[in-house]
């Protein structure tokens, strides 16, 4: 069973309140669940469905669209090696093979100590720094196989815990929104005219009113 902890449940409810339509909180709540458990478990999705008032299948459908939500348990560090064009030309594939050997797993696998999940990723937009690697979406550039070994060692020893938090962690400091800072968006069905349209209309109306009030002026000039 992985359900929201009491503290996270409270936070989830607070997040839902920030949206005019509860269902809009689906993705933020998926993040919250992934932060808690490192991945998005089935019962978390079922609980999110209950909280936002939709079906579990809808949460699964939404979450599974995004690569960054993991539907099964992954290591503390998701290590992705880019093998797309630039990186491939500069040794990405060799780097991946080296990572496979060092960690003893194939892409998609997780080490038995639960620390690393290896991934073969497409271009991560760091082509100028090829070959590029990301660990929990933190970038490491122009790595040689030796650099990679060292990186793995540092991750394993905890030396990089400050730089690379556990998989799923959203930010080192949670953005704590006070009630007074919530945007209070009006629900779509209650939304009135946007302010710029209103201003535009008011100006037009004022002009029309002015025209109507001074017909005689126009008459005199002609």
């Amino acid at each position, binding site marked *: 069973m992985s359900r929201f902890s009491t503290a996270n449940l409270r936070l989830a409810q607070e997040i839902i309140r920030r949206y005019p339509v509860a269902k809009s909180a689906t993705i933020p709540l998926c993040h919250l669940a992934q932060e808690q458990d490192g991945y998005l478990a*089935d019962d978390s999705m*079922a609980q999110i469905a209950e909280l936002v008032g939709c079906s579990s*299948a809808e949460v699964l459908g939404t979450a599974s669209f995004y690569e960054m939500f993991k539907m099964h348990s992954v290591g503390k560090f998701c290590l992705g090696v880019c093998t797309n064009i630039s990186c491939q030309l500069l040794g990405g594939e060799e780097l991946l093979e080296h990572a496979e050997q060092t960690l003893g797993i194939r892409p998609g696998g997780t080490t038995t100590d639960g620390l690393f999940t290896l991934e073969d990723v497409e271009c991560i937009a760091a082509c100028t720094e090829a070959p590029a690697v990301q660990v929990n979406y933190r970038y490491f550039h122009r790595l040689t196989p030796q650099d990679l070994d060292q990186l793995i060692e540092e991750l394993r020893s905890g030396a990089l815990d400050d730089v690379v938090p556990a998989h799923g962690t959203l930010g080192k400091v949670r953005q704590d929104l006070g009630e007074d800072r919530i945007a209070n968006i009006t629900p779509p069905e209650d939304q009135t005219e946007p302010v710029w349209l209103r201003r535009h209309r008011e100006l037009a109306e004022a002009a029309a009113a002015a025209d109507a009030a001074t017909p005689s002026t126009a008459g005199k000039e002609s």
Partner: protein
Amino acid sequence: MSEKPRKIEITDPVTITVDGREVTAQNGELLIDACERNDAYIPRFCYHPRMNPVGMCRMCLVEVDTGRGPALQPSCMIPVAAEMVVDTKNEQVSKAQDGILEFLLANHPLDCPVCDKGGECPLQDQTMAYGPGESRWVEEKRHYEKPIAISETVYLDRERCILCDRCTRFAKDVAGDPLIHFIDRGSNTEIATFPDEPFSSYFSGNTVQICPVGALTAKPYRFRARPWDLEEVESTCTGCSVGCRITVQSSRNQVLRFQGVDSDPVNWSWLCDKGRFGFEAINSEERLAEPLMLSSDGTLSPGRWAEALNAAADAIRAADPTSVAVIGGAQLTNESQYAWAKFAKGIIGTDHVDAQLGDGLAAEVVLGLPGATIDQVCAPGSTVLYMGPDPKEELSVLYIRLKHAAQEDGVQIIELSPAASGLSPYASSSLHYRPADLPKLVEALLAGELPDQGLPGIDAAEFTKASQALLAAEQNLHVVIGRANLAESADCVAVAASAVHQAIPGATFLSALRRANLRGALEAGLTPGMLPGRSSLAEHGQAWKELWGSVPSTAGMDTTQILQAAAASKIDVLILLGADPLADFADRSLARRGVAGARTVISLDRFLTASTRQADIVFPIAGFSECEGTHTNLEGRVTRLNQKVTPPGTARTDWMIAAELAALLGKDLGVERDAHELWDEFTAHSAVHAGVSSAALDHPDAADGLLLDLGPRPFVTPVAPHVAPQSSYSLRLIVNRTLYDQGTEIHHCDSSSGLAPAASVRLSPADAAPLGAEDGTQVTVSSPHGSITAALIVDSGVPKGSAVLRHNLEGADPGLLIDSADVVCEIRVEVS
């Protein structure tokens, strides 16, 4: 594809050019429909005329020029505007269609020879018509495990899926059960359910019908026939009183499938699964094929028709007419109902005839109030006062129409029910009253204020909202009435309906009673005190006497009274027209005593039921799709039922048995060859049936059936029943139905029989907590008349102070708690 564009009335015409021709279209309608209506069919996969477009498949690309030069556009997403120039057939368009098909086929397996859809597959047909003759694809296609069950009845073959979004849109937008969804992304996208949460929607079969490929198949039809081997006729589903139009498809004298037909005033092509897969009961091995008679050893054994008919005629002849009673007949065709009304009332001379089993509404209420059609109830601008049963469970396609009306057409639904229902999420206000409080609630709503002490369970703010909506509705008020609670007197809803009728004379009423042709039975006079055509025995007896030769002198008894009389040995012959009081009459003890107390029980049925097992003579009956006739749905819409197969063994149609018995009694029922003669006689003598003669029904414009005259008749205001005050430690019982129960029909459908839930007791969290009980705890429910034990379900949809039990489920029979003499049933619940 078999779907037709919706019929529309052109109110805002614009001229557009389609393939060089100037045509008229409705401003703003979808281009794909406008073209089809003007003989330029555009191929499509994802577009369905009864669902909102999504532009998912791009098969409907056409070249559209709105003044900025021609460009390819998906015609299912483009609203028609004046002066549009459209080309649906030029080279650009052909190339686009060819290309789209090549993409769709890239991952599509070469399954046609083993695919159920082959022969009626839009992908197959459109590839032949618009596609590349050959494949350039040499790469590996994607592979998935072949078919996976996504519910008890529906199988999904993901390799065949073209991701058109029809099934998922249907599930979410039409049925309101979003249990299937696209998961993943790009070429890995697939349809899926949530793990361990199957697509158990009451409407799942519709996705099979609308899937444009063989990705979704239904267990009851898989590998049973090829489309080119099927013969079909149009007919009307008799699974409930909604009367959805269907085609009955058969091969080698066996019904193999029902498909929904788009009947604009009724079902919009949708069916519920109970109706769709109900054909299995027709083919059941357990159908009665020969008459049965009680033999000397006390068992029912096969007999000959002549023997059985003679025995029945002898029993009727020997009995005093007032000691003969007829119960049931709601499943018969209009013709058979008329025949039995004439036989019972005109020939035998008894008025103890009732098609309802205490679970309906008085005929005066159903026939006396001004009628509303489904279309009127669901029309934009309508306000609906809903005082009926849970429509999702009992009248499923009516639920679809109401849900659509509320969500898409802004219809306000004010729901008054004893507990939350499938309709509650779509109602603009939902008030849950304590059983027997409905008359008080309606009175208060009409007065605009709650009584000083309030009403139990009614929230003041919600009340005010409902009351204002109700009073603002005036001419647009449509009231749906029915039995939301079988453990509560039918008088409660009758009194409430009558109060609305008095206060808002323009309001019209739709009676939501479940049994298939119950409306027809009431119209045919299978109810005490009435004769065919809404005529009352007291006022119009003379006219029918002239036709029939005689009519009963006084009004007879209803089912409750008949059973009471039978229990007191005052009924010599009890005739059951497909009725099973032992399962369906709410008061179990009275039903048992009644059926046992009748001297001779004659049953006409398709199956051995609890009641037929107690009979002395059983006649096997030709059922749905085995006989010709007409049907009247809950609105009063008459449609044709057509025969497709022959009945099993020597089974006969109900009217034939009436005619034979009449002859044996030395009388003539007035029918020589077929049921048409009965219909002609009936429609010629009933003013309300004047417009539905055989000739009128055969007119091509009458494909959706014809309405009876729905104008009001004199209506007698019922008297409010007296309810004893509720004692503070008891709860009030709510008994309602689920779509799947242990009913005979469902029981004989292999794919549906396992879907009935086990019996349970539902309590509100507030009532469950003090018992220290939780989901699954065994609890005992007792009333002064009996007690039963079942597992508890804590259900926040049940108001405090009430408990819900379901009718006719395995494990616990609420009938044991009920005394039909009581207005409500007070119970106590304890942990066993």
